[in-house]
């Protein structure tokens, strides 16, 4: 007290302001370090008071989203946003409150977290699936727990254990062609034991058309030595490094991997470069292996050779030869997009002609024809995507994965069973609350930001229309983050 009494008025005043400044710095440091490893960031609409930029921001592209301060309106698919965090976290629970103004053509809402910036791969988690919400009450439920929902088209099973043992044996009731043909999944990994009895390889696969950007493919390999030879052309049109990463998976586990680091960080004026890669090994059993090629769109796969004649590209293919091409797919639709107006024109899919009439716009072409469909392109350099596989030959096409309960799912079709990991949203007077959980440890974290996307497959908005009839009206996004505490970081 004596010390305080001896201080002049000016000294007291300065001490007071210094304490305030130090307190402010301590608060900032606390929210930078987050010593207890837990924090929740929220964004509300309508926005009452916003003094800062916020942690959930940068909703884009602008033509697909409207933020008027009252609502966040999602008009087209997909919409991206950033989550700024001052440090990394291990897990996130994202909760979204929204009014659903969508139609039956857009039954699914998903939330994705960017996993890999090179390939642009997102970890998608469900928010709402109207097909499952409807089938949950019309199909007999075999299991409805937090972990799993099992539905069956008829009362084929009454015990989950019987279903599981039959599924493991590959002989489900009312399913003569095997589980892959009659089990549909949603947000659930079903290990498949896809096998080709007495498989005899005719000719090894050799890529006939170059492909642009990241690709994944299934390949059927016989128990023996294998070798994958790849050649790439880095066009050096962009100004960033273009690393090449190739992973080979056996039932989700990496059995071979190789990386080519791109040292060319300043490629201006540098001509394209050719790079080669070879992976080899021994597989212990006949079966399906998955190969993932992670490259940017500046890199072209110019050649690919592997000792198998069964090879199917998963979900996406981007042929880049600018010539005519015939492909095959097992899905009932394709999504086509080109970046170059030169490649606009007709696409023959399943015997029907469709017109790709505009560059940069994604078109969805659907056909009712069952089985494998032929796809004829007069000019390629078109990105093709669907929920199935693509192959260069009819004989080479195979799909070991079960079908997915997506927006093209038909009740009464081939699927007799559905296995899903899905919780339907809570509904309060039309305001729906849905949550999705993510493992953040493997997510892409750049410049202090995680990137998310909100996907409503099939939601499109005509730019020439003034009114929006079908949309998602978001009222709140909250992200609950969990990570290591300060003590765990120091002592471990």
């Amino acid at each position, binding site marked *: 007290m004596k010390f305080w009494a001896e201080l002049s008025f000016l000294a007291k005043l300065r001490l007071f302001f210094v304490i305030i*400044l130090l307190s402010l710095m301590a608060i900032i440091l606390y929210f930078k370090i987050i010593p207890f490893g837990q924090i929740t960031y929220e964004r509300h609409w309508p926005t009452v008071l916003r003094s800062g930029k*916020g942690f959930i921001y940068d909703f884009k592209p602008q033509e697909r989203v409207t933020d008027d301060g009252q609502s966040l309106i999602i008009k087209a698919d997909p919409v991206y946003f950033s989550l700024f965090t001052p440090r990394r976290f291990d897990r996130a629970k994202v909760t979204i409150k929204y009014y659903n103004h969508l139609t039956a053509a857009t039954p699914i809402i998903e939330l994705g977290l960017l996993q890999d910036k090179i390939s642009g791969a997102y970890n998608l988690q469900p928010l709402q699936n109207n097909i499952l919400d409807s089938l949950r009450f019309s199909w007999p439920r075999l299991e409805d727990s937090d972990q799993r929902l099992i539905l069956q088209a008829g009362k084929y099973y009454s015990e989950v254990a019987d279903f599981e043992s039959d599924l493991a044996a590959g002989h489900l009731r009312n399913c003569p062609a095997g589980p892959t043909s009659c089990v549909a999944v949603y947000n659930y990994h079903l290990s498949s034991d896809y096998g080709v009895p007495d498989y005899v390889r005719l000719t090894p696969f050799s890529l006939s058309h170059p492909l642009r950007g990241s690709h994944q493919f299934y390949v059927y390999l016989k128990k023996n030595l294998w070798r994958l030879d790849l050649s790439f052309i880095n066009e050096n049109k962009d100004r960033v490094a273009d690393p090449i990463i190739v992973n080979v998976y056996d039932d989700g586990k990496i059995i071979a991997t190789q990386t080519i680091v791109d040292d060319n960080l300043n490629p201006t004026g540098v001509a394209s470069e050719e790079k080669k890669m070879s992976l080899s090994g021994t597989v212990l059993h006949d079966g399906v292996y998955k190969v993932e090629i992670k490259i940017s769109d500046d890199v072209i796969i110019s050649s690919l050779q592997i000792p198998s004649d069964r090879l199917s590209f998963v979900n996406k293919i981007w042929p880049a030869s600018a010539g005519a091409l015939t492909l095959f797919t097992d899905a009932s639709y394709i999504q086509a997009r080109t970046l170059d107006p030169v490649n606009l024109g007709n696409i023959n899919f399943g015997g029907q002609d469709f017109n790709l009439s505009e560059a940069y716009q994604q078109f969805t072409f659907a056909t009712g024809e069952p089985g494998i469909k032929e796809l004829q392109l007069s000019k390629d350099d078109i990105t093709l995507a669907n929920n199935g596989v693509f192959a260069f030959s009819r004989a080479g096409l195979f799909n070991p994965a079960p079908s997915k309960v997506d927006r093209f799912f038909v009740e009464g079709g081939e699927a007799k069973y559905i296995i899903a990991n899905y919780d339907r949203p809570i509904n309060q007077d039309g305001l729906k609350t849905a949550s999705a959980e993510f493992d953040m440890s493997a997510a892409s974290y750049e410049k202090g930001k995680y990137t998310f996307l909100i996907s409503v497959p099939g939601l499109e908005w005509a730019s020439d229309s003034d009114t929006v009839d079908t949309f998602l009206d978001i009222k709140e996004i909250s992200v609950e983050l969990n990570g290591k505490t300060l003590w765990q970081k120091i002592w471990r």
Partner: protein
Amino acid sequence: MAKNLALISREIFYFFSATLVVAIILELIWPNVILSYFNLNYLLLIWLLSALVVIFKK
């Protein structure tokens, strides 16, 4: 009293100057660490007002 007010206003100006400098340095070291919570333009405005008060008191 008037002398004290002049002193206080000057010290407030010093305080906002120091806060602004610290905030800018922290933003340069850890981008968005302050901007996510608080728009520094408001602080700049308050600092400017405090500077005007000091000038007029003189």
